[in-house]
C-alpha cells in the first residue's frame, strides 16, 4: 500500500486527530463537557482549530522515548561519576534546591491541570495537544525527582519536598499560583499556564537558568532542563494557538481573555522573582543578569508576540511597564528577604562577595550601588561584629501572591508599596496594583488564601515558635537552614575539595 506512505504530514495529522473524534449519540455535548461554558467563552466552530505542531501520537511516543533514553543515560552517568563534585561551588546547590522544591511540584500540578483540560475541552485538536502536554509534564516531574534523588544523597533540604511544598511559607508562592490556575475553568487554565506562563514567561525560567546550570557544571540539571524545554516549544505554540483561536471565534471573548492575560502575566511575574534571585545571587558563575534575560525574553520576544496579537485587539498585559521597571530591583529585594529569613528557609544564603557586588553594580548601574550595595555592606559589617542580621518577626504577606510585602513603589525604591482593599468587612493587603486588581476581580476566591503567617497565628502550623513551625515543615534545624558558611553542606564540600587538593599534591 503505497498510498499510505504518500500521505503528507498535514493529512496524516488530520486523520490521526480529527479522524478519531465522534459525535455523541446518546448523551448531549453539554453533559459530556460540563465545564465548557460557564466561563463565558463562546466557541462556534472547533474545526477551525489549527495545530501548528502536527505531531501524531505515534511520532510523539517515538520522539519522547528518544529524549528519555538520552536524558537517563546522562543522569545515570552524572550519578555514577559523582557529578556533584564537579560543580563550581557548593553554594550553587541552593539554586537547585529552590528549583526542585519550588518548581518541580508545579510540573506535577501542570500534569494534572492538562489532564483535566484534555478531558474537558470539547475540541479534538486541543484535547490531543493537552493530553500530550499532560504526559510531558509528568515526564518532567519524574526526571526532576530522579535528579533530586541524587542530590538528596549528598545535600540537605531536599528530603521532604512534597511535604514542604504544601506547607513552607515561600513555597506557598508557587503552590498557590498553580492552585489558583487549577481551580479556574478549563479556558482560564489554558490561558494561565499554556499562554501566560509557557509562552510569555517560561523562557525566563528555563533558558537562562539552565544555561547557568551548564556554566556551573550541573550536568544533571542542564539535562532535565533542556529535555523539558524541548517539549516547551510545543507547549508555547499550543498556548499561542489557544489564544488566537479564542479571539478568532467570537469578539465577546476578547475582554475575558484580556483579563486573564493581565492576571496571569502578573501572577507569573511575581513567581519568577524567585528565578531572578537565583540568577543574580545564587549562580556562582553568572551567565546573564535577570535584567538582561528580561530584555531578551520579555521586552523583545514578548514585544513581537503582542504586536502579532494586536490584530485581534489584544494589548500588552496591564502593568507590563511596572514589571519591566521592577527588573532592576526584584532580584535584590528577594535575596534580601531570604537573607534575613534564612533561619526559616530550606536552603542556605550568603552575602554577595566584593567581586559579585561589582558584577551587580555593572549589571544594575542605576540601582545596585544606590539602594542595595549599602544594605549588603551593612549586613556584612554586622556579621563581622558577630551580629549576623536576622528578621525575628514574621513578614506581612501579600494576599494574592503570598510573597512578603517587600516590593517598593513604582518609581520610588525607598518606600514599600502598600495597597489594600475591603471585602465583607475585612481588610486585605497587597504588594502592588497588579495583585490588588486580581483580588478585586475575584475577592470570593482570594479571601480564602492560605497565608502561611496567618496560619501560624491561628495555631495551624505546629506551634507558635519558629522551631515548632520548622519542625512542622519537616526542616532539619541547623542543617537545612541558615548561612551557607558553617553548614554541613559546606563542611562536606570543603572536605571534598581538600581531598582533591591532597591528591593533586
Amino acid at each position, binding site marked *: 500500500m503505497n498510498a499510505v506512505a504518500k500521505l503528507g504530514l498535514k493529512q496524516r495529522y488530520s486523520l490521526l486527530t480529527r479522524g478519531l473524534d465522534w459525535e455523541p449519540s446518546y448523551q448531549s455535548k453539554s453533559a459530556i463537557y*460540563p*465545564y465548557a461554558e*460557564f*466561563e*463565558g467563552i463562546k466557541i462556534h466552530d472547533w474545526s477551525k482549530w489549527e495545530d501548528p505542531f502536527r505531531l501524531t501520537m505515534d511520532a510523539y511516543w517515538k520522539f519522547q522515548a528518544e529524549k528519555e533514553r538520552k536524558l537517563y543515560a546522562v543522569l545515570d552517568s552524572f550519578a555514577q561519576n559523582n557529578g556533584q563534585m564537579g560543580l563550581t561551588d557548593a553554594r550553587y546547590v541552593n539554586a537547585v534546591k529552590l528549583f526542585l522544591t519550588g518548581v518541580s511540584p508545579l510540573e506535577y500540578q501542570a500534569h494534572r491541570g492538562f489532564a483535566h483540560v484534555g478531558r474537558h475541552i470539547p475540541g479534538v485538536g486541543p484535547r490531543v495537544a493537552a493530553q500530550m502536554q499532560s504526559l510531558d509534564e509528568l515526564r518532567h516531574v519524574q526526571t526532576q525527582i530522579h535528579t533530586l534523588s541524587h542530590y538528596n544523597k549528598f545535600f540537605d533540604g531536599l528530603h521532604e519536598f512534597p511535604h514542604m511544598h504544601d506547607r513552607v511559607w515561600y513555597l506557598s508562592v508557587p503552590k498557590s499560583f498553580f492552585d489558583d490556575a487549577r481551580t479556574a*475553568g478549563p479556558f482560564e487554565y489554558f490561558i494561565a499556564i499554556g499562554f501566560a506562563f509557557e509562552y510569555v514567561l517560561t523562557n525566563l525560567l528555563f533558558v537562562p537558568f539552565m544555561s547557568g546550570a551548564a556554566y556551573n557544571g550541573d550536568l544533571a540539571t542542564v539535562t532535565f532542563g533542556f529535555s523539558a524545554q524541548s517539549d516547551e516549544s510545543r507547549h508555547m505554540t499550543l498556548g499561542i494557538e489557544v489564544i488566537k483561536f479564542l479571539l478568532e471565534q467570537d469578539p465577546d471573548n476578547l475582554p475575558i481573555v484580556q483579563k486573564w492575560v493581565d492576571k496571569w502575566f502578573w501572577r507569573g511575574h511575581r513567581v519568577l522573582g524567585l528565578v531572578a534571585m537565583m540568577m543574580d545571587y545564587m549562580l556562582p558563575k553568572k551567565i546573564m543578569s535577570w535584567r538582561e534575560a528580561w530584555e531578551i525574553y520579555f521586552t523583545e520576544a514578548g514585544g513581537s508576540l503582542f504586536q502579532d496579537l494586536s490584530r485581534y485587539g489584544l494589548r500588552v498585559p496591564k502593568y507590563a511597564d511596572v514589571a519591566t521597571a521592577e527588573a532592576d530591583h526584584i532580584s535584590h*529585594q528577594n535575596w*534580601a*528577604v531570604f537573607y*534575613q529569613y534564612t533561619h526559616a528557609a530550606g536552603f542556605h544564603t550568603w552575602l554577595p562577595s566584593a567581586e559579585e557586588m561589582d558584577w551587580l553594580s555593572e549589571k544594575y548601574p542605576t540601582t545596585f550601588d*544606590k*539602594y542595595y550595595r*549599602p*544594605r549588603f*555592606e*551593612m*549586613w556584612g559589617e*554586622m556579621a563581622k561584629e558577630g*551580629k549576623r*542580621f*536576622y*528578621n*525575628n*518577626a*514574621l*513578614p*506581612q*504577606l501579600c494576599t494574592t501572591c503570598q510573597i*512578603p*510585602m*517587600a516590593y*517598593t513603589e513604582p518609581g520610588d*525604591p*525607598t*518606600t*514599600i508599596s*502598600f495597597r*489594600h482593599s475591603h471585602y*465583607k468587612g*475585612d*481588610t*486585605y*493587603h497587597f504588594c502592588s496594583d497588579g495583585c490588588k486588581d486580581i483580588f*478585586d*476581580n*475575584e*475577592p*470570593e*476566591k482570594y*479571601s*480564602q*488564601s*492560605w*497565608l502561611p*503567617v*496567618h496560619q501560624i*497565628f*491561628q*495555631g495551624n502550623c505546629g506551634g507558635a515558635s519558629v522551631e515548632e513551625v520548622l519542625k512542622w515543615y519537616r526542616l532539619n534545624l541547623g542543617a537545612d537552614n541558615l548561612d551557607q558558611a558553617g553548614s554541613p553542606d559546606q563542611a562536606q564540600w570543603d572536605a571534598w575539595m581538600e581531598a582533591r587538593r591532597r591528591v593533586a599534591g
Partner: protein
Amino acid sequence: MAVVALEKDYADKVEIRDRVENFHGNIVVYLHWEEHLSFCSAVAFPFPPSMPFGALLAEILPTYYGAHPDFAAIDWAAVRWTVDGNDVTPDPEKSLADHGVGHKSLIRFWTPGLHGYRGSFS
C-alpha cells in the same frame, strides 16, 4: 466584579480564612518602620486589641527593630505615626483599639533625621 464560578451560589459558600474569630482573641497587626528597608517588609503580630500602645513602644519595637544601628538614635517625641493611613499621636496608656488599630491594621512610623544605613534607606 465577582468571581465567575461553575457553582451558582459559590460566593455564599466561601469561608473567609482570616476572619478575626480564627485568631483566638487576637487581631493581626502589621508594623512598619519607614526608610529602613533592611527590614524587608512590614512585620506581622497577633496582639490582643486591649494591649496598651506603650507595650508596643517598650517591648515590641526594641525586640524586633533594635538590631538596626539607627534604632538607638530615635527621637521618640518626633516620630510620626499612622494607623491605616490616618495620623495618630500615641498614648502609651491607651489600648491599640483606642488608637483605631483593628484586625489587619497597618501601623507605619517615620523617624525624622534617620534615613537608614548611610542614608541609603536600608
